């Protein structure tokens, strides 16, 4: 190698990576690596090093270790792509994942380039979670993880699946993996309690007693074995068998569709290691699955020792069977080498599931207490008041500060409950008693109570006491807030729930919304805008006039609301004259009435400053001018705000208010304010619109981007809440329609607004023309 070239390379390298950052053997290794490459490759590498080094030094060194095969087979563009992939992994999952990615050049990258990009969990999450919700009858969260698994509340799935070249098939794998994890929950893989635990341990008759005091049942169980790991592996295998059999019965279509996948797993499964424990057993299961045959236990220790038919009726049987299989395996080879399980079986994390269960218990407790306290608040307040009256009537004693404390909240008496228990159903609390008052619980509270009873077996009095205390401690004001997050609550504010997609439920009375006046502003905006758009306005006025409703009666009908006297006279005359009389003798009101109420809701977040804001104002003006010739009822409001305690809507024009100079002035005064929390204004105006008598109720929302607020109202949470608010509006019989102004169409838009319910405008100048057009199309 020419030493001059060598020197240039060295110099270039040290320009990117200062020499002092490297120890001597590292720089030697680096240089060695570089000098062995061809010149273009060196250039390529140095270029990418300058990208990676600032991100992470250790990543850079790991990169150099792995770079050679990549340089050998990728061209310049692909190489850059590969580096981007590495950095992506590193940033999302850390060094380990990036290393794995680099090491597995073939499957991770070459396949991608061949067009087999695989299917990402993020792309199928919505469909998958809806599917799972339907199948399981309750919501689950879906999360990314290396191995599939569950902690009984979340289902973990790999972040992408590229087993097949077709994404439909990859989706099926996702579907199967998710269904299997649900099945694991159904067969109680993470069994947390055993009713007759003592009897079970007696029957097991084992001397080793480790973990006797662990709070997790599975630990207490596995602690009775010399090799707890082996016992748990056997148990997991049996539960996998059970879950798969359950799926075969419950979702036969899924299992038939997954046949190809099982065949693929069989091919990849290492049967070669014949002598390792479970290799033959897994192969046996996979082959049955691949042929979609009803599952049978594999021959050998499993078939001899297990009685799978009684697992359902007797919960401890599977543990007894596990012990029997363990005995046999352990007797033959103490400490067998265990074959790796197929990927789909996933992880088996007893502690995580336990921790999650406890966390969920806490969460449910919190939610229940909070919701219940809100439910009983009015009654408590009433009782307090009565109590207070009594006291002051009796004497002039100073009033006790906490006069509600002597109330008791309790479950209905045993007798009541007996009556309300549905035969064969889960336990659920439908009523509670506050002293002598019976208070019904809403669906959400019932659901929570069901979860609590499922988990704990009863409803702890402590929960009720806490709820009562919480309710008694807070003053009953409509704008009460439980958790101050900054921003003073506004008097006269309306309270709105907010949808939390993570818990698949509402945060009750979460947002405070205030309606405000907007001061009309003078200036030349209006006259300039009217002048500028006068052509469009004139044209629109003519168009809109033709859409006006016609209240008219038409005569000479075969039937109708009343007799058409003219026609009747004529007919009688005809008859007299010996002519056949007409039978069209009725008048009927023609119902081509436009009974439409529209509400325009305008985004006033700070991002609308400048051109967008101006275009929105101009469009409102044009729209209002056109609406005047149409005669539909309409209102205009702006919205903005900051944090959940201060959602604001600004009134430009009320529904019945005439369009005049004041309204024009208010349009001119619309200006950028704070953030875009879309849920509360949508809910607010849905309520207002739903109370209007109109055949068609339109809620037209104008915005320039995705919903976002100063607090945690952003991203998926904000999108899901807004989507939910729109769905609520639809259920109330309102047609929401969104006009969104953005540079390019975002992926989330169709999810957020629904495929047919939005209009995307990339050039804000088109808005004054497109908005009335859209309105015309929507309402005719």
């Amino acid at each position: 190698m020419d030493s001059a070239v060598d020197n240039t390379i060295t110099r270039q390298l040290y320009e990117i990576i200062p020499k002092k950052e490297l120890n001597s053997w590292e720089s030697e290794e680096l240089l060695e690596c570089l000098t062995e490459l061809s010149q273009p490759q060196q250039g390529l590498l140095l270029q990418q090093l300058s990208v990676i080094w600032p991100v992470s030094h250790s990543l850079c060194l790991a990169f150099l270790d792995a770079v050679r095969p990549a340089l050998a087979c990728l061209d310049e563009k692909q190489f850059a792509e590969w580096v981007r992939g590495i950095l992506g992994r590193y940033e999302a999952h850390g060094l380990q994942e990036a290393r794995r990615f680099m090491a597995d050049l073939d499957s991770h990258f070459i396949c991608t380039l061949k067009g087999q990009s695989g299917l990402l969990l993020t792309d199928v999450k919505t469909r998958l979670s809806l599917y799972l919700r339907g199948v399981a009858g309750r919501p689950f969260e879906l999360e990314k993880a290396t191995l599939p698994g569950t902690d009984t509340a979340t289902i973990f799935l790999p972040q992408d699946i590229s087993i097949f070249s077709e994404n439909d098939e990859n989706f099926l794998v996702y579907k199967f993996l998710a269904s299997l994890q649900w099945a694991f929950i159904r067969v109680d893989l993470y069994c947390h309690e055993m009713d007759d635990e003592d009897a079970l341990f007696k029957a097991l008759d084992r001397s080793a007693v480790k973990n006797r005091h662990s709070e997790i049942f599975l630990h207490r169980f596995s602690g009775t074995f010399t090799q707890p790991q082996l016992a748990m592996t056997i148990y997991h295998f049996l539960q996998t068998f059970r879950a798969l059999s359950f799926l075969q019965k419950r979702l036969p279509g899924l299992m038939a569709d997954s046949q190809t996948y099982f065949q693929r797993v069989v091919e990849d499964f290492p049967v070669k290691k014949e002598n390792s424990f479970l290799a033959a057993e897994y192969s046996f299961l996979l082959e049955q699955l691949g042929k979609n045959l009803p599952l049978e236990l594999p021959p050998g220790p499993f078939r001899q020792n297990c009685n799978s038919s009684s697992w359902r009726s007797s919960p401890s049987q599977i543990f007894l069977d596990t012990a029997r299989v363990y005995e046999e395996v352990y007797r033959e080879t103490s400490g067998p080498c265990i074959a790796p399980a197929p990927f789909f079986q996933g992880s088996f994390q007893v502690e995580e599931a336990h921790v999650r269960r406890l966390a969920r218990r806490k969460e449910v407790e919190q939610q229940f207490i909070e919701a219940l306290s809100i439910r009983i608040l009015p009654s408590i307040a009433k009782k307090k008041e009565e109590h207070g009256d009594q006291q002051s009537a009796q004497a002039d004693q100073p009033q006790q500060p906490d006069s509600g404390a002597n109330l008791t909240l309790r479950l209905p008496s045993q007798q009541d409950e007996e009556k309300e228990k549905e035969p064969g159903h889960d336990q659920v609390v439908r009523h509670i008693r506050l002293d002598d008052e019976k208070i019904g619980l809403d669906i959400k509270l019932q659901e929570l109570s069901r979860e609590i009873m499922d988990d704990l077996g009863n409803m702890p009095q402590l929960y009720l006491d806490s709820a009562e205390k919480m309710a008694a401690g807070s003053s009953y004001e409509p704008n009460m807030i439980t958790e101050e997050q900054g921003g003073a609550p506004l008097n006269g504010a309306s309270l709105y729930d907010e949808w939390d997609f993570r818990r698949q439920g509402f945060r009750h009375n979460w947002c405070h919304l205030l309606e405000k006046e907007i001061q009309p502003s003078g200036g030349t905006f209006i006259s300039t805008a009217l002048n500028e758009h006068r052509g469009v306005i004139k044209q629109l006025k003519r168009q809109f006039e033709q859409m006006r409703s016609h209240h008219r009666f038409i005569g000479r009908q075969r039937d109708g609301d009343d007799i058409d006297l003219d026609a009747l006279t004529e007919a009688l005359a005809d008859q007299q004259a010996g002519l056949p009389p007409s039978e069209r003798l009725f008048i009927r009101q023609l119902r081509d009435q436009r009974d439409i109420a529209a509400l325009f809701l305008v985004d006033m977040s700070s991002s609308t400053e400048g051109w967008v804001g101006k275009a929105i104002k101009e469009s409102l003006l044009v729209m209002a001018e056109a609406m005047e010739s149409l005669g539909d009822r309409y209102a205009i409001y702006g919205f903005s705000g900051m944090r959940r305690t201060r959602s604001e809507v600004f009134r430009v024009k009320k529904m019945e208010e005439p369009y005049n100079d004041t309204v024009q002035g208010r349009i001119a005064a619309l200006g950028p304010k704070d953030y875009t929390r879309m849920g509360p204004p949508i809910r607010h105006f849905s309520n207002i619109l739903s109370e209007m008598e109109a055949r068609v109720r339109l809620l037209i929302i104008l915005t320039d981007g995705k919903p976002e607020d100063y607090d945690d109202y952003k991203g998926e949470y904000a999108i899901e809440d807004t989507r939910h608010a729109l769905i609520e509006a639809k259920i109330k019989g309102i047609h929401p329609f969104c006009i969104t102004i953005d540079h390019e169409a975002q992926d989330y838009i169709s999810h957020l607004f629904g495929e047919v319910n939005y209009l995307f405008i990339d050039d804000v100048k088109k808005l004054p023309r497109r908005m009335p057009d859209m309105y015309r199309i929507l309402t005719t």
Partner: protein
Amino acid sequence: MHGKRIEEHFIDKEPYYREQGQELTIALAAYEHKIPLLLKGPTGSGKSRFMQYLAWKLKRPLVTVSCHDDLSTSDLVGRYLIRGGETVWMDGPLTLAVRHGGICYLDEIVEARKDTTVVIHPLADDRRELPIEKKGEILTATDQFMLALSYNPGYQSVVKDLKPSTRQRFIALELAYPGPDIEAEIVQHEAKISREEAEKLVRLAEMTRSLEDAGLQEGASTRLLIHAGTLINSGIAPRQACKVTISETLSDDHELVAAIDEMISSLYT
């Protein structure tokens, strides 16, 4: 406009109805004591079928009116028609039932405008009278007359809710979807499919019903299951049958339809 004669409203053949609870006993008691009936329940849960069965049981004619927002009082009470130069009074369906002691069943009553529905008020209390304004006549119902309304509390808007003054005149029966066993029995009978197939359809219905919080307005009704079963019975592949009768009818939302399709393909091979 040619109305049917009252004789044509009798139901000769016993309609299939599987009782869920006490609804028949209660309805018969209501009839005996001349108290009108309000049936609540989701779409396709058997409200209309129940009325047919009740009418058959009581051997009274059943006059059904499907309400809509253009329904006028004349459409219910009747109007003058002119035939061959003479005016002829034509009873509307409500008058027909009142006059001949039939059962008048106003299906989806909240769809009708409020000014239309007030006409039933004097009929629904102990006066049992129907004023026929155009004829200047007040018709008193015979003992055999019964008024029944139905509505779906699930999806209608607040505006379309029944007024308390209307609803408080009625005995209300809730006809929700039956339990899984009964529902399977109904689907099996109506679609003439095997018990196993029927149970599978019911399972699918339950899956869709648990999507109600997730954006679906209503889950699959018993009626949809019967449609699906009928198609399966006539030899259409189950996946296809369920897709056309269930997933595509329940929603237009792309993601929801896809999710329901996945449920279908999980259940059916």
